[in-house]
């Protein structure tokens, strides 16, 4: 079957046709067979005769002994009280502390849940402007990095255990001769840093030794191609009616995505069918989450974005725009429409330039925003918060040159892993070996640590004090939740030791800086006021409040008059990006593994990547048409399977990668993901996937032309969950056009299949005297970011199963995000996300088939799953139309690694082998709230109970509440015209319902 056959087939369908994957569209018999077997790998015949006999013997024995297991005596359990109990701890009740996660030099504000000294779960800080209570996948999973059993535990000198005093002594000995030369030959290589305390210490060092140089390198966040923009843009998407993205994944990636999603989705939520929506246009080369949420999406190559921006700017009459190059027909059709829409929404529109686009595109976007009245309202330009040189490539290149010239005597590498991540053309490793003394501070003894004489375990951010600035400049404090588990040290400690103020705790250092700041003795003058804008009476009051809040509200760049740095005098005379020819290569970090730093995090490995839903691997996206052109299109796979491995040749370098035809990718573009292929990551991440850093160069770290694809004839197993748990042949997502919906409020209801009235049921009606829990999920707000999946994993102790088991459809995630495409495979018209947890049906098909009563209806409407009763017949899962039940085929929970046990949520049972599990609506949170309300003699307030997925959601797409409370938010949402039940024609009466997606398309473009 070819793409054209599929197209013909699609055109033959009536109405809106949604599809999940190209294989589904092809509809081969193999694929149908695959779909119909819920657990395909399980049905295999037992062909090994010896194994079969053994199996029968064991089976007989286990049957005979089945009853006896019930009389096992419980092993004795220990109770270990404190010697001196801390005042604020009530055993059994968690405490919450405000802290922040630094990522790419920017802070992500958090509230950390602490059970008897163990941080177990992270939530967003609801009062912090960068979070407003939400977090993302990376923050959710970062708690697992803390307990990672493969983190390094010892200071190593040439592989031998050493101690902190010997390290500091060695450091001082090496520094002594350098100091006399003003520090020449001493270099520090860090990640991007915005921490005021660290910057202060660095300034102290560089004042004493002016020749010391500070380099920064971050292959994901600190790397620019074609120059860094002069100012960072802070968007106010809640004020924008029209948003145009120029290759910017502002909803899907980076620490600003949370606030952007909050603001953006606030304009997508509807009360009535006539409510106005914002409109999002996206111009991009590869399908991103932002593109998937667009009302209109234009695929062009990354190199053509500059041309498009130029053409748009000149059509808008921006002065001084260079001559616009010719744009494609599609783009030509777009520009007049965009111009009209942007002009019609003067002051309420914004253009967003992508982080991977050159400075010239950012300058054009800024000029357009000036012209359409966006600057100052929908976007604010501010000085960047990250202190070090923001052009990581230039900084690293300088370091490599100096190392090669023998000008570096002592190199301190902090956090980053350049041996693995540096651009291939710089040949960092060879240069590094020329440095006489190399010290590595990192959480893992990674590829770089291995090449340094000294390796020092770095403390996790939950283990040491610090501070960091959020993207809007708000200073956020990093408060540790636990003593360093593996004896880690922070950069601040090393720096203090170099500066001769060692021996202080990190708390003293951070508090010391802010005490000085309070007294106005620091170089940077900070305005320190409380949230009402009043000065603090004493430094103690200031510090206590700051720790309690987790941030210093008055330090936001957005409070008061924003110091907008002047645009460069001749902004548009910036050098246009060099012309590129041939097949285009686009480098992207893996969305979760990033540059490999999270490779040993099982939660992140198993979280399906957005859109492709690939787990445990990196892939190369091409458009289906390009795949067909290179003869690597495979529609014949049944679900997971072997994908063609192609050789990517680029500037004389080669790498092999599996090809994934992703609808929505621009033609003649290969999108590769780096971060996999680590060699020293640990038990989870070592030797997983292909390393693509071997292709990335310093000249074009994000995109370039001139790449070649060659078939190798080899195959490679890629595991994707996109075809798992499919509700095939039905219409699970409902999408309407805004115009149509405004005219016909019944438009959503009319999309449903015909069904019996809700009264027709063979089941006895169930009465709800107390609470009646329910959930509504707004598909219009959901961006498909996956944060709910990881939050659920963290909250509910969900196991990681591994690539082999995911291939067998055995992933354990209680909530999944189904992605549906609409339209032509090479140019999809729409991409829709649908989070699917257990629907907690009123007439639940699972309950009636359980032979042992392990899944039963609770009096508050939950479909309770009782693990200790379950005998693993899997009838319930078989009978579930939504395919939301997960079975522990093997012993997936780790009962043996003590480090990982400490992470677990003590409020949720750890499931063993042979037990079914599923979403519980976070019943542990319901029970806690119920007990609290009873003890305090008050009803449960609406919004008091938040499920883990709801709490994390940056789009506020999930609302949970009491259906018996007429004033609750969930009741209001379910009363909306957009509300519908998933597969409601089956008569299950699901308790979770969905609010249909409404697209606000511009009639001029459709």
């Amino acid at each position, binding site marked *: 079957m070819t793409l054209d056959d599929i197209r013909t087939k699609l055109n033959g369908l009536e109405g809106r046709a949604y599809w999940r994957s190209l294989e589904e569209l092809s509809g081969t018999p193999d694929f149908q067979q695959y779909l119909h077997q819920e657990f395909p790998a399980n049905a295999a015949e037992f062909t090994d005769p010896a194994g079969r006999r053994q199996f029968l013997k064991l089976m007989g024995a286990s049957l005979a002994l089945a*009853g*006896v297991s*019930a*009389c*096992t*005596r*419980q092993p*004795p*359990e*220990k*109770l*270990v*009280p*404190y*010697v*001196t*109990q801390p005042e604020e701890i*009530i*055993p*059994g*009740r968690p405490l919450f502390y405000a802290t922040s996660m630094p990522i790419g030099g920017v802070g992500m504000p958090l509230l950390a849940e602490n059970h008897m000294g163990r941080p177990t779960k992270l939530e967003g800080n609801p009062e912090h402007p960068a979070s407003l209570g939400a977090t993302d996948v990376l923050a959710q999973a970062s708690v697992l990095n803390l307990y990672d059993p493969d983190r390094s535990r010892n200071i190593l000198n040439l592989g031998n255990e050493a101690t902190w005093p010997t390290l500091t002594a060695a450091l001082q000995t090496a520094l002594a001769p350098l100091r006399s030369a003003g520090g020449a030959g001493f270099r520090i290589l860090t990640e991007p840093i915005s921490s005021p305390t660290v910057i202060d210490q660095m300034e102290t060092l560089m004042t004493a030794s002016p020749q010391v140089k500070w380099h920064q390198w971050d292959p994901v966040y600190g790397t620019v191609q074609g120059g860094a923009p002069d100012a960072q843009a802070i968007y106010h998407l809640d004020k924008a009616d029209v948003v145009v993205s120029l290759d910017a994944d502002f909803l899907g990636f980076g620490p600003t995505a949370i606030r952007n999603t909050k603001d953006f989705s606030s304009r997508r939520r509807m009360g009535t069918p006539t409510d106005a929506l914002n409109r999002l246009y996206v111009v991009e080369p590869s399908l991103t989450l932002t593109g998937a949420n667009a009302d209109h999406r234009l695929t062009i190559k990354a190199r053509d974005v500059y041309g498009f921006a130029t053409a748009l700017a000149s059509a808008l009459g921006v002065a001084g725009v260079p001559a616009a190059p010719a744009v494609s027909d599609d783009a030509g059709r777009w520009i007049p429409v965009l111009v009209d829409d942007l002009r019609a929404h003067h002051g309420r529109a914004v253009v967003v330039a992508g982080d991977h686009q050159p400075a010239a595109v950012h300058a054009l976007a800024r000029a357009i925003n000036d012209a359409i009245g966006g600057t100052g309202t929908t976007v604010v330009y501010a000085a960047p918060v990250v202190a070090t040189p923001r052009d990581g490539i230039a900084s690293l290149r300088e370091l490599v040159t100096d190392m090669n010239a023998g000008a570096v005597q002592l190199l301190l590498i902090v956090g980053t892993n350049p041996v693995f991540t540096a651009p291939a053309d710089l040949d960092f490793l060879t240069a590094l070996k020329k440095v006489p003394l190399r010290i590595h501070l990192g959480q893992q003894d990674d590829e770089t640590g291995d090449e340094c004489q000294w390796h020092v375990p770095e403390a996790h951010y939950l283990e040491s004090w610090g501070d960091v600035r959020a993207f809007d400049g708000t200073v956020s404090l990093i408060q540790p939740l636990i003593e360093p588990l593996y004896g880690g040290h922070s950069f601040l400690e090393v720096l203090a030791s170099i500066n001769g103020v060692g021996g202080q705790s990190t708390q003293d250092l951070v508090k010391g800086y802010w005490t000085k700041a309070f007294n106005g003795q620091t170089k940077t003058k900070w305005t320190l006021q409380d949230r009402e804008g009043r000065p603090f009476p004493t430094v103690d009051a200031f510090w206590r409040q700051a720790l309690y809040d987790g941030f210093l509200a008055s330090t936001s760049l957005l409070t008061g008059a924003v110091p907008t740095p002047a645009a460069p005098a001749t902004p548009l005379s910036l050098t246009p990006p060099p012309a590129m020819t041939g097949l285009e290569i686009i480098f992207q970090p893996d969305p979760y593994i990033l540059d490999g730093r999270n490779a040993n995090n099982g939660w992140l490995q198993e979280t399906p990547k957005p859109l492709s839903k690939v787990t445990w691997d990196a892939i190369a996206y091409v458009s289906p048409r390009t795949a067909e052109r290179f003869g690597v299109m495979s529609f014949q796979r049944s679900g997971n399977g072997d994908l063609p491995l192609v050789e990517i040749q680029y500037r004389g370098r080669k790498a092999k990668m599996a090809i994934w035809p992703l609808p929505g990718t621009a033609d003649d573009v290969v999108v590769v993901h780096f971060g996999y292929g680590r060699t020293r990551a640990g038990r989870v991440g070592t030797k997983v996937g292909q390393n693509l850093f071997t292709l990335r160069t310093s000249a074009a770290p994000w995109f370039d032309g001139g790449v070649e694809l060659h078939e190798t004839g080899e195959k490679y197993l890629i595991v994707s969950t996109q075809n798992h748990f499919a509700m095939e042949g039905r219409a699970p997502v409902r999408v309407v056009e805004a115009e149509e919906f405004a005219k016909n409020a019944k438009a959503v209801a009319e999309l449903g299949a015909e069904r019996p009235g809700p009264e027709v049921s063979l089941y006895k009606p169930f009465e709800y*005297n*107390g609470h009646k829990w329910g959930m509504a999920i707004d598909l219009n707000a959901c961006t498909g970011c996956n944060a709910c999946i990881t939050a659920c994993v963290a909250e509910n102790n969900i196991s990681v199963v591994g690539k082999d088991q995911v291939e067998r459809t055995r992933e354990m995630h209680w909530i999944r995000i189904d992605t549906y495409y609409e339209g032509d495979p090479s140019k999809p018209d729409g991409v829709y996300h649908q989070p699917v947890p257990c629907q907690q049906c009123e007439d639940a098909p699972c309950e009636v088939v359980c032979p042992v009563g392990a899944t*039963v209806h*609770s*009096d*508050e409407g*939950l479909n*309770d799953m*009782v*693990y*200790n009763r379950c005998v693993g017949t899997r009838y319930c899962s078989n009978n579930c139309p939504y395919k939301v039940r997960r079975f522990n085929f093997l012993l997936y929970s780790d009962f043996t690694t003590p480090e990982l046990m400490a992470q677990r949520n003590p*409020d*949720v*049972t*750890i499931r063993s082998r042979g037990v079914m599990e599923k979403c*519980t609506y976070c*019943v*542990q949170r*319901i*029970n806690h709230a119920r*007990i609290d309300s*009873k*003890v305090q*003699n008050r009803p449960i307030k609406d919004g008091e109970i938040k499920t883990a997925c709801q709490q994390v959601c940056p789009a506020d797409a999930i609302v949970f509440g009491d259906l018996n409370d007429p004033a609750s938010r969930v009741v209001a949402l379910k009363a909306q015209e957009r509300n519908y039940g998933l597969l409601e024609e089956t008569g299950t009466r699901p308790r979770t319902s969905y609010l249909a997606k409404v697209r606000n398309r511009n009639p001029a473009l459709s």
Partner: protein
Amino acid sequence: MSQIFPRSANATARLTIAGALGFVILLGWVVWTLMFSSWVTKQNEVVEQPVPFSHKHHVSGVGLDCRYCHTSVENSEFAGIPPTKTCMNCHSQIWTNAPMLEPVRASLRDNKNLTWIRVNDLPDFVYFSHEIHVHQGVGCATCHGRVDQMALTYQAAPLLMGWCLDCHRAPEKYLRPRDQVFNMAYEAPANQIELGLRLKKEYGVADVRHMTSCSICHR
């Protein structure tokens, strides 16, 4: 050719069948009895502890309230085991040289935790909250027995699910006024059912359907 089996083989065969059946039944009975036996439930079993702590002495003799040591019983699911400091509040003044208390003194001296063995140990898939039970008028002694008369602490109740459900199905049989919860010597009045029903209403104890929903205790 003679018969292979003698005539008596019939009887042997019948006996074997009956015997096998009897054996299975016996086995079932043994398993069943064992399951509810105190050997499995550990009911009435005294566990050896690092310090032979006597509740009898401290509660009946000295007159300490439960909450002096089990501080979080009213506001957490876990009642709390006292830190060494709590022991030393008194034992830094009295019995300062008793050899029996050496582990306690050593704990404070070396800043090393005491390690007790849990006496009332529920399976890990059961989530019990002291807070709500105490608040709804379930007395300590109702589940823990007359701890004030235990020289060495043991588990008074079988702690089987059926035992829990006995109360969850009909709490009126056991409820007492809130101010009597910590009274070890409290005797149920003759009109307990009447009182229980009144308290149930007053304290807002949920109905039997709610109290026997699985997710109330299992999650």
